[in-house]
Structures are given as C-alpha cells and as structure tokens.
C-alpha cells in the first residue's frame, strides 16, 4: 500500500465526480487543441502555397489613384492611370542589379472575349516557359504543341461544353483544345489559355503584356530586394512577391491565433474553477477520512500528497481526452474552415504540452483544497467520526 493506491482507489470509488472533472478539464484542453490544430492546418496550407510559388514575383500595371480629401475627410480615390506593358520593354527586367537571381520570365496577356455567346477570359502565355513554372497544373490531354492549340480550364470546359480535340473559333482563327486543366481551385479554372502571340492577336493587343510572372532562381534569395529593384526599374508597375501576398494571409491566421489564445485562457479559467470547486467539495466530504488518516499517523504532507495525486490523475485524463477530442473536432471541422484544406496531422508535442498544462492547472486548482484538507485539526476531524 502506497499513497497513490489510496488516491487511485478513491478515484475509482467516485467515478461520477471524476468523469465530471475530466470532462470539464478535457473540454478546456479540447478547445485549445482544436483552435491550435486549425491554425496549424491554416499555416500548413499557407506554407504549401509558399512552397508552390514562394519564389515567384508578379508584375502588373499600377493603377494610380489620388486620394481626395476635404478638411481631412477622404472622399475617395481618382484613377488616373492604368497602362499595360509594352512587350519590348520587358528586356529591362534582366537589367536589374540582382539579375543573376532571376529565372524564368513569363509574360502574359489577359482579356475578355465573346466565346460561343459567353464572356470568357483569355490568357496568352509562352507555353515553353509557363508550363515548367506551373508545376501544380495537371493536364488531361497533351500540352499544346503549336500556336493554334489551347488549354481550357476545368470550369470553362464545363460551361462551354468543350472536350479534348474540339475546335473553337476565336476571332479570325480556329483553335483546337489540346488539354483540359484539372481543377486547381484558383482563377485558372475559368480561363482559356493559348499561345501569347495568338491571344494578343485575338484580343487586339499586339505587343502588349498584361502581367509578367517572374520566377526567382533560388528559394532563399532576397525576394524583397528583387521586388524593390523591379519596382525601381518599372515605376509604372506594381510588383508583388507572391510570398508577400501569401504571407498577408498569415496575418489573418495570426489574428485567429491571438483570438484563440484569448478563448483558450477563458475556457481554462472556467475549467480550473470547476476543479477547485469540486476538490473543495470532495475535501469537505472527506473530513472523516482525513481525520482517520491523521489519527493513524499521516502527516499533513501525506494528506496533501493523496489529494494532489488525485489531481494529477484527473489532470492527465483531462489532458489526454482533451487532446484526442480536440484533434477529432479539428479533423472534422477543418473542411468547413479551409475548403480543400488538409488536416495538419496529430502534433505530439502539442499533446505533451496539453497534458502538462492540464496537470498543472488541476494541481494548482487543487493546492488550496489540499492545503485546507491537510490542515484539518485531527481532533476537529475526529468530531465527525
């Protein structure tokens, strides 16, 4: 017989109370684990995107607007410039200081056209540079081999009822659908993608480039610096590192995380209060028992140890069940939070932390009840005998 045998036997006897306590603590821990698992999955989702096109830079024409204000009140912006790039100017891209870091330069032309009675967005690209850049594109069919072949986005193909091998008249020319782009969940799904110069001709934008995508050679090269040098070179362009755009999303994840911590703190406080109240009640109920322990020679520390060991067991069970429950909830609600998002997986260090936190809370909430129980004067406790 050791003190922990007494604790375990008592917990077994008071199953209802233990379940109640474990549920209270477990709920708190599950809330934290759910919120943190979701933010982790969101972060993972963003990191995936960074991995995909983290080294890419997009250059689009700047649309300047001037803020108008009367007496300090902004009344809106006035657009006064929105120009596209001239194809011949793009050579300047390779003249910046860090040009050795530049990889592929993929110019594109964009424009709307009437196709089979519907307004569709056309994109002209240089397939030779575009396809190696878009490693996440999956094509049904073969990559276009000539200027008269097209790739049709999944959504566009469905709307226009197009299949591989179909022909499609655009402007004065007729094109063949060489491949259907499998759904990406992004804007490409609604596009018809063709050869750059053929699309410039269809759209009447010869020599015009709407946007340029630039892939940097290295993953860790100074993208921010590249962006600034390109901006300096092309004052009329808005240059954005896709990493920057993706990282901007991180801001909302961070906000969600901060909010989660707040909620978690509150839930944990309530959980601790529950443990405190229940343990106080248990100590009062056990006055007689504590009297017997003290009478047969248990020190105050021994009585505290019995109560605190119970708190450790309850804390562990609460932490463990909360961790399991939290992961289950996160796994089941994640598709609602991030469409097409994948569950980041079970994070065992978070599990260890959750269990430690639960034990620490249970212990701290039980310290005063344990102290109160152990300080019972044996003669007072014996009066209850």
């Amino acid at each position: 017989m050791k003190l922990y045998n007494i604790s375990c036997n008592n917990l077994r006897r008071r199953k209802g109370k233990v379940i109640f306590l474990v549920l209270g603590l477990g709920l708190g821990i599950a809330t934290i684990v759910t919120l943190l698992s979701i933010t982790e999955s969101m972060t993972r989702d963003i990191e995936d995107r960074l991995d995909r096109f983290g080294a890419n830079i997009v250059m689009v024409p700047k649309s300047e607007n001037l803020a108008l204000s009367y007496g300090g009140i902004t009344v809106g912006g006035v657009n006064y410039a929105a120009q596209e790039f001239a194809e011949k100017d793009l050579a300047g891209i390779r003249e910046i200081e860090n040009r050795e870091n530049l990889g592929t330069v993929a110019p594109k032309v964009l424009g709307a056209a009437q196709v089979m009675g519907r307004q569709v967005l056309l994109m002209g690209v240089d397939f030779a540079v575009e396809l190696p850049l878009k490693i996440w594109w999956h094509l049904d069919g073969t990559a276009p081999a000539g200027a008269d072949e097209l790739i049709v986005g999944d959504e566009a193909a469905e709307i226009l009822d197009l299949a591989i091998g179909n022909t499609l008249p655009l402007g004065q020319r007729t094109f063949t659908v060489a491949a259907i782009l499998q759904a990406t969940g992004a804007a490409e799904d609604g596009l018809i993608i063709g050869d750059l110069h053929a699309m410039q001709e269809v759209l009447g934008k010869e020599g015009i480039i709407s946007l340029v995508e630039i892939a940097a050679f290295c993953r860790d090269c100074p993208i921010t610096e590249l962006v600034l040098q390109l901006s300096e070179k092309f004052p009329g362009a808005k240059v954005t590192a896709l990493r920057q755009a993706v990282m901007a999303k991180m801001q909302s994840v961070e906000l969600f995380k901060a909010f989660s911590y707040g909620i978690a703190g509150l839930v944990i406080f309530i959980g601790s209060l529950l443990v405190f109240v229940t343990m106080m009640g248990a100590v009062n109920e056990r006055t007689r028992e504590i009297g017997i322990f003290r009478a047969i020679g248990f020190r105050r520390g021994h009585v505290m140890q019995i109560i605190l060991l119970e708190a450790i067991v309850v804390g562990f069970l609460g932490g463990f069940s909360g961790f399991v429950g939290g992961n289950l909830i996160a796994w089941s609600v994640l598709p609602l939070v991030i469409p097409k998002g994948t569950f980041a997986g079970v994070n065992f260090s978070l599990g260890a932390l959750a269990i430690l936190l639960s034990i620490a809370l249970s212990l701290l909430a039980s310290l005063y009840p344990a102290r109160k129980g152990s300080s019972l004067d044996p003669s007072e406790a014996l009066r209850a005998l």
Partner: protein
Amino acid sequence: MQTKENTGRHLIEIRDIGKDYQTGANTVSAIRHMNFQVDDGEFISIMGQSGSGKSTLLAVLGGLNHPSRGQVLVDSLDVYGLTSEQRADFRSEYIGIIFQSFQLIPYLTVLENIKLPMAITGITAKKQDEMARSVLEKVGLGAKAERLPDQLSGGEQERVAIARAIVNRPPILLADEPTGSLDSETAEGVMALLRQLNKEGLTIIMVTHNPDACHHADRTILVRDGLCLS
C-alpha cells in the same frame, strides 16, 4: 525537541492535564484535572458515563487533542511539546487507535484497510502484505482479506479495526468503546483478543462505560465530570 527525564520510568505520564472548550462566552471543562501513570504492558480501562471526559482523555493521550494545560509524557517524549509533524510521527510510531464504530475506509478492502498505516512507513509491498496477512490471521479473518468493510459483520469490522491498529506494532493501543456496538458474545471475543494482545506485551488503554469490559483490565480509572476518581 522535547525530551524530559522520565524519573519514574512509566511509559505514559499524565501530569495535571486539563481540557477546556469555549462555547460562546462560556468555558466548559471536559477534563478538569487529571494525573496518572501507565506502565509498559499494562491494560487500563477508563470508565465513566457519557460526557464524563473519557473520550477527550483518550484523544489527548493519542496526541490528537491539545490539552489546555498540563503535560502528556510518553516514553519520555513531551507529546504536546513536539511539532505537529513530529506528533504525526509519534502517532505512527507509538499509537494504535481503535475508534468507536470502527472507522474503516469504505472503498478499501479489508487487507488494504489494514495496510493503511504502513502506507507512510516505506515498508516494501511484499513485507506489507506479509505483515497485514499475519495480523489478519491473528484476528481470525484470514479468509476475508479481499472483502469490503460493508460486507462484514460488526464483530468482524471491529477485528479489522484492531488489526489495523496493531499492524505497525505500536507499543500502545488506545481503544474507544471497542465493544460498544457489539452483542455480548462478540464483545467477549473482542475482549479476549485484546487480553491476548496485552499478554504479548502491548500496553492497552480502553475507554468504556461497560463495567463487564473492565474485568479484563489490570486497573480501572473512574472518570466523572472531568476528574479521575480512582
């Protein structure tokens, strides 16, 4: 640290003790003035009506209830001069207590109840088991080791309480009305067991209001209104 030369060499010396309780503005004396000694190996019965102060006296003797005045010396230790933790150790080392109405822990089996005082001694599990089973045999309950207290009769519960009190081999056994809730036949069996333990060297102080139980004791101290009469 409180040791005093025990000049008379008595195991227990009660010196001018008194115990008062404050009830509102009034002071009630449960023990007014008591002075007596108990020798090693004696079987003493303390007899008196209810409210005479005999249970309070037992609690004072067991280091459970601080007297308002006087001294309790056990094996030359001034029990109430010890710190609270030393007093807990004193109870563990010197005292076995049989409570009125047994006071067994309901969620522990008979064997576990008996092992309870050993939970804080550092004795190995195997040794604990041997010691507990040995005392259980001694009180005649060897076959009921795994029962819960509420599955036992009153007499059996009393025997478990005795086994728990003696398992740590304390030199002194304090018994509060050990036969109070038993029929005469069972009570007689319990008294015979106590007598047997006394013969083996245990000093027993038994509180009772039953004159028949006193016949088993070497000496009887009569208590009335918080005073020792004899």
